[in-house]
């Protein structure tokens, strides 16, 4: 009897010790539930004509009768508009738990999972490079404007940061594609790689990838850098006012060392959570940017699906991106409490 009690107590203590994590996990799951409900609402609001059109398409393609096609359509979509709502919901839930995100109505019943699998790497290629570059450069620029605020260099950079924060990212994209792709013809204006090439791990293909991705990445970097600069500015300003900066000077530490280990290191800490969140957002692609550059990624697929009213693709991508973002946020929160020594060891 006491063994059981002992065991229960140990389990209880485990939960208590990590209670913050479990609480966050709980909230994350609830948020996910909200998203699932949202996408279900989306499905439910699908006008009946969508299924009818799909059925018509099927009946033509497969040369079956319309009634048969309709039944087939309902089966393929795993959705019966005439069933009671709770039943529809449980069916939907079951499908999700199996990992099936549905099929594309407009695209030959292609599985949404497949679409994601095809397009995700391209989006990630662009986003991850852009994020890394803009973070590194942005934080460097930001801290440069704070240390020695009155130098000419710092003031110019500061002005640049303000202006580039004002210009929205799609405008940068529009300018880039107009000037560099259409006007000067230096870069291609659509696609992810040379269509004639065979995808693979060879150097030519990778170079082609980079060539096609150069403009979107540059546009991303150009506009995202300003965000990181501003964040770094805010954080570094706070750090500058701390006593340990002056105390470090008093110890005869050279300026470069202070900027590196005292200013930048402490200023970057709060930015790491932001970085993690951006990492999650990366997965959603940027529908607008991708559509401007005609870059075939998740974002473009998403906006296209909305335009074409391809409901399943829309909710599939939405769910996928949400899961990633929620998951990444959770991880980021946990990691931050681990890396900040101040939070790490406090009981």
């Amino acid at each position, binding site marked *: 009897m006491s063994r059981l009690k002992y065991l229960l107590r140990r389990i209880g203590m485990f939960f208590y010790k990590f209670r913050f994590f479990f609480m966050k996990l709980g909230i994350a799951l609830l948020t996910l539930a909200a998203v699932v409900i949202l996408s279900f609402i989306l499905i439910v609001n699908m006008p009946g004509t969508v299924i009818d059109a799909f059925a018509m398409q099927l009946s033509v393609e497969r040369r079956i009768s319309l009634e048969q096609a309709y039944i087939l359509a309902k089966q393929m979509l795993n959705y019966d508009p005439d069933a009671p709502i709770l039943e529809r919901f449980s069916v939907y839930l079951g499908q999700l738990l199996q990992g099936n995100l549905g099929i594309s109505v407009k695209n030959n019943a292609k599985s949404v999972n497949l679409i994601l699998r095809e397009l995700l790497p391209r989006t990630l290629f662009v986003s991850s490079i852009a994020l890394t570059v803009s973070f590194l450069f942005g934080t460097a620029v930001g801290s440069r404007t704070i240390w020695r605020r009155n130098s000419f260099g710092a003031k110019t950079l500061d002005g640049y940061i303000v202006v580039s924060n004002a210009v929205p990212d799609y405008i940068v994209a529009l300018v880039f594609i107009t000037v560099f792709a259409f006007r000067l013809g230096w870069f291609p204006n659509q696609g992810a790689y040379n269509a004639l090439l065979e995808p693979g791990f060879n150097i030519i293909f990778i170079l082609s990838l980079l060539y096609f991705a150069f403009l979107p990445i540059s546009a991303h970097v150009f506009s995202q850098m300003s965000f990181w600069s501003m964040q770094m500015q805010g954080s570094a300003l706070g750090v500058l006012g701390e006593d*340990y900066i002056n*105390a470090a000077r*008093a*110890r*005869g*530490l050279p300026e470069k*060392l202070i900027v590196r*280990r005292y200013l930048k*290191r*402490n200023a970057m800490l709060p930015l790491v959570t932001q970085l993690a969140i951006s990492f999650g957002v990366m997965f959603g692609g940027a529908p607008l940017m991708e559509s401007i550059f005609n870059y075939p990624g998740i974002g473009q697929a998403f906006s296209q699906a909305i335009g074409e009213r391809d409901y399943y693709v829309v909710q599939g991508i939405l769910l996928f991106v949400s899961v990633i973002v929620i998951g990444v946020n959770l991880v980021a929160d946990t990691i931050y409490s681990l890396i900040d020594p101040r939070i790490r060891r406090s009981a």
Partner: protein
Amino acid sequence: MDSLIELKNVSIVYRLKKNPIRAIANVSLAIRKGKITALVGESGSGKSTLAASLLECLSTPGEVESGEIVYLGYDAPADVRKMAIGALNSYRWKEVSMVFQGAQSALNPTMTVLEQFIETYLVHHPEGRKKDNKAAAKAKTVELLDYVNLDAARIMSMYPHELSGGMKQRVMIAFSLLLGPKLMILDEPTTALDVITQGYIFKILKRINRDFGVSMLLLTHDIGVVAEFADYVGVMYGGKLMEFGTTWDVFKLKWHPYSEGLIRSTPSLYSDVASMSPIPGSPPDLRALPSGCVFHPRCPKATARCRVEEPADHSVGEHLSKCHLMEESKP
């Protein structure tokens, strides 16, 4: 008398956007070798600014407007203001070190105590093998932490936020001894601590002064501490040095009315609380200092002359007082 550092007519200004503030006006001061010199004054009297200027470490809008800060610990006198950055960084901490007020945030939160000790040591010992220097630094760290009665093994690998206030202060004292400086500046070392820890810290400081012969500059507003602890005392008010001399001279003779007021306003264990008389009024606004003698609005002995003319420094031997009344009564 052998001096270690001499300030000659130093004025320090904080150039704020609206009105510049003169934190120190024309102060001349000598810090004696091997002795403990205290600087007392109310908040805003300029003590911290003066101390920071010895290390050329004024917080940003501040700058030394005029005067010389001459360090005499080298073979030849060196003006701190004119030192090149390399010489300055070598001078900092090695010749003169400082325990900041509220050592709560004088340490980098992302580095352990040992890492920071080693960092400073390595910066000041660029020659030789890094590995050897690191070992030497670590040994010295352990030795110093032990000296201030801290458990070296445990404290070394801790982060600043894990230390209590008293522990942090002792770490900072150990840190300031790392390179064997000739002068240690202590800016209100115990203001944030309780009385018992205070006594403890001062015991340690006294021991340092005795064992290593380190000169000390102690900034405080606590007269009691000064009386017990310091060899020399300087009294600052409104950015000016009002009186300076040996502790005995200043406390016994009380030449300057402000010093007299300060000493009289301290409660004593012996006499009645009623005999305690605080100085009326409040410290001056540095943006709009009174004319003539800065202290005249609050001085019980002020004359018409005090309102108009700033007093000169009158000294007899080592004892100095900035007061017109000195001219009448020369002891």
